[in-house]
């Protein structure tokens, strides 16, 4: 480990320093504004540094971390998303009747975990990053615990997430142990060409190991049939924690899954392909169908995220069959698109909610279009993007997935995708329609004070990104294409 090795770790170090600084700051003097500013500045610095490093860094730092264009691309995504969430959470927790500063500490520690995850090609770093992220999330989910009139079930959500998540980690660890028994290394390595083939346990052990790891990861990604926790946790958590869980939590986990599957060549095993196909189908159908029955915005978005993870899985399966890197590009682009549109959708809900009163019933949004046209235009754009309508980044993402599916000849999955998207339209449009209806009575939305101005700025940036990547995606496409070649 030399100084040269430290340089590529700059984004990680900056975020770590930020969390240490935040912690010390809280010890010296409690100030919500200062803590928030430090966190946001630190995350912004990490974003910029990672973006600048992208063109010339490609280095394995110790066996644990790989810093290449792909991991840096997602470091940028993770850090900027964390920064946006930090900005959005400022007005949200502004009136919380409790210590507010530690939320930023948890947020930056979780971000450390996410950065480690997107840069890992080793079991140890993957599990370390994952646990760092999850541990902080338990705290974030339960954050407004002592608040007198806050969100209803933060503790229930946190405990539920903790117990089930620990069980899933157990599956992943057991699977890793089996893989280790096969390959003799904790680095991700091909399971197809084993070095000492005569000493290995046989192919069945590989399949079982892969299945256990897939199940564990599918749990974290809330893929059906491991999705049961998702709506409850989404609903019970405070809005910023839900946003973090839904965007960064999912994206980081998916990058690990992608690297794991690509490097271990897991898809060479027929049974793994079958299982992933079934999981994708089940997720798309279950997510979209169950979302139809919901009246709570967070639950709808939770079920829709289940479906979106299913769409992404199609691209992962396609990466095995398609020529070139189209499958990986599809995953990458869709993840970026998904982060943007989920951030936007949850962001709008955050802006009108606060820790004391959340507006998360669909009926709360009645007449929003006439009351606050800009806010609701942003929301409509995000929902249409989630539904995959042109002019938005969601459409280009869906285009990628369709293309990768067509190249790989996954006709059955494509049919499910069309069906799922068709069902999805219904519940997205239902929210849109609610916003277009005339106002019934004046809703007691929080009228943001000065502290909300920056939140509106974040939403504006997200809207611009959504439209820019949707209408002129050529630049981001080439970035994605270059980064994907590193997997």
């Amino acid at each position: 480990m030399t100084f040269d090795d430290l340089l590529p770790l700059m984004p990680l170090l900056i975020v770590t320093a930020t969390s240490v600084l935040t912690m010390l700051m809280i010890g010296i003097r409690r100030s919500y504004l200062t803590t928030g500013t430090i966190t946001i500045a630190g995350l912004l610095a990490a974003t910029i540094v990672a973006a600048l490093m992208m063109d010339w860094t490609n280095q394995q730092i110790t066996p644990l971390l790989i810093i290449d264009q792909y991991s840096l691309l997602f470091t940028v995504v993770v850090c900027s998303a964390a920064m946006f969430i930090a900005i959005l959470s400022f007005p949200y927790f502004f009136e919380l009747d409790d210590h507010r500063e530690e939320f930023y500490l948890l947020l930056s520690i979780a971000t450390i975990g996410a950065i480690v995850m997107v840069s890992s090609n080793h079991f140890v770093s993957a599990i370390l990053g994952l646990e760092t992220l999850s541990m902080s999330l338990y705290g974030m989910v339960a954050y407004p615990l002592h608040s007198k009139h806050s969100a209803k079930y933060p503790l229930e959500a946190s405990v539920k997430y903790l117990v089930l998540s620990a069980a899933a980690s157990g599956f992943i660890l057991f699977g890793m142990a089996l893989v280790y028994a096969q390959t003799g290394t904790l680095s991700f390595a091909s399971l197809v060409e084993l070095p000492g083939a005569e000493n290995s346990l046989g192919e069945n052990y590989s399949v079982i190991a892969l299945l256990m790891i897939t199940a564990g990861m599918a749990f974290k990604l809330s893929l059906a049939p491991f999705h049961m926790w998702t709506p409850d946790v989404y609903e019970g958590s405070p809005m910023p924690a839900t946003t973090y869980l839904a965007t960064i939590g999912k994206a980081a986990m998916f990058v690990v899954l992608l690297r794991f599957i690509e490097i271990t060549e897991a898809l060479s095993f027929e049974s793994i392909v079958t299982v992933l196909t079934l999981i994708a189908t089940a997720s798309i159908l279950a997510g979209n169908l169950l979302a139809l029955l919901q009246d709570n915005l967070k639950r709808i978005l939770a079920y829709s995220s289940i479906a979106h993870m299913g769409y992404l899985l199609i691209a992962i399966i396609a990466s095995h069959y398609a020529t070139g890197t189209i499958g990986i590009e599809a995953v990458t682009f869709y993840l970026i698109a998904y982060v943007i549109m989920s951030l936007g959708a949850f962001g709008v809900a955050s802006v009108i909610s606060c820790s004391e009163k959340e507006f998360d019933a669909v009926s709360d949004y009645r007449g929003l279009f006439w009351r606050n046209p800009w806010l609701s235009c942003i929301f409509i754009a995000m929902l249409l993007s989630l539904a995959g309508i042109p002019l938005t980044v969601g459409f280009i993402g869906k285009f990628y997935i369709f293309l990768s599916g067509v190249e790989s000849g996954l006709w059955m999955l494509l049919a499910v995708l069309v069906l799922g998207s068709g069902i999805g339209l219904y519940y997205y449009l239902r929210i849109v329609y609610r916003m277009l209806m005339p106002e019934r009575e004046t809703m007691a939305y929080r009228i943001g004070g000065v502290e909300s101005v920056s939140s509106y700025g974040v939403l504006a940036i997200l809207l611009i990104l959504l439209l820019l990547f949707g209408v002129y995606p050529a630049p981001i496409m080439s970035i994605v294409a270059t980064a994907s070649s590193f997997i």
Partner: protein
Amino acid sequence: MILVVLISILFLGGVLAWLSEGLDARFPRVVALAAVVIDLLLMLTLVGAEAGDSSWIVSLNAQWMPRFGVSFHLAADGLSVLMMLLTAFLGAIAIGAAWSEITERAGFFYFNLLWTLAGVIGVFTALDLFLFFFFWEVMLIPMYFIIAIWGHENKNYAAMKFFIFTQVTGMLMLVSILVLAYFHYVQFGWFSFDYFDLLKVNTSSSIEMWIMLGFFVAFSTKLPSFPFHSWLPDAHSQAPTAGSVILAGVLLKTGAYGLIRFAIPLFPAASQQFAPVAMTLAVISILYCAKVAFAQTDIKRLIAYTSVSHMGFVLLGIYAWNEQALQGAVMTMLAHGLSAAALFMLAGGLQHRIHTRNMDDMGGFWAKVPRMSFVALFFSIAALGMPGLGNFVGEFLALLGAFKTNITLTVFAAFGLIFASVYSLWVIQKVFHGAYRNTDFDDSHLSDLSRREMFYFGAMMFGLVWMGMYPQSFLDLSAETLGLLLNETDPVVSAVVR
């Protein structure tokens, strides 16, 4: 470049109309009308333009997403120009229909109206299939808003149904486009979504049929043709008048345009094999929907079903794929655009005045509103195919062409003309003839057509008479395009026929 200007005027005009509402509630409609009229005038400059060595009068090709060979390729030939003229003309008419009807949130209404028109112009000029699909979807969202916000009692259901039908079938078309682009990639080594590149792709016959079906389903839903027509009556009966005008006059025609421009030229062999099925569906549409129209009591639903019936002639003409039939299809598209738009405006006008669409409540209006009754009689007669008016020319040519390829089906289709007379005259008799009755509604606002309304209807009457008396001026515009399309597909088609 002029095509980009045409589209941008509408996009920007929409934004401007929305913003101008803040100044004065009457500004949006003026801004919108100005944008559409400027567009119409610009289009007229294309009519006499020389095409040069190809049939394309203007074209523009720029890179858009080089990773997948997607280009921003717009071009217009005679057929596109004809369709664009119809779009802009009916756009202006629709603004007229909305002029006094839409009073609430007018800014956003005209924004949506102009964006729909922009999407339609894009569809009529796009020559890159990705771009085409892009515009195809862009015209949906504002239309959804128009129905969902300004619609009538059951607007949510209608808007949702409209959106889901067109969007889901659109996605099937997207898959087809991607498969085609992938075949291009396999055969030529690079991705392309360009129309001319994709025309060169060789597809094996079994796959070709599937890809073609993806296009066909999307287009025939929009057209609409049996069995994908059920969204149309709901959408029409719930939409505000201007929405119905755009929907019936312009949006339906994008489906027919798509068939002529893309579905058949890209897959000539599969289309030729599929033609008997498509023509059968067309005949079912014509007869079945005429029958169903007769059973309606809601006047807007009735007109909606007659739309499906008339569009059946278009589908029949297109799949007959010879010169007369195609000319007939194009002519029917134009004439039906005007006559259906006018009928929807009349129905909308009635609803605006007496707040009901139920024909059982109406009767004997001739005495009360003679001008309106005369206009209604004129357009009903146009719709039933009276010689001397545009619809007759179109439907006659379509039948004439279809007779060459499939006599049995054409004979059945011809019965549609008789059915059309039955339901058209039945409406006139029920609503306008007989003794005046106003027991079931408040007739205090039942006034005759205003001078402004007469002007719009007059313009449409003039159009229909022109089409009926001197159709050559329209036939000439599209003849070259259609001739080229026929020539290109000829070797494949004749091979299949033999």
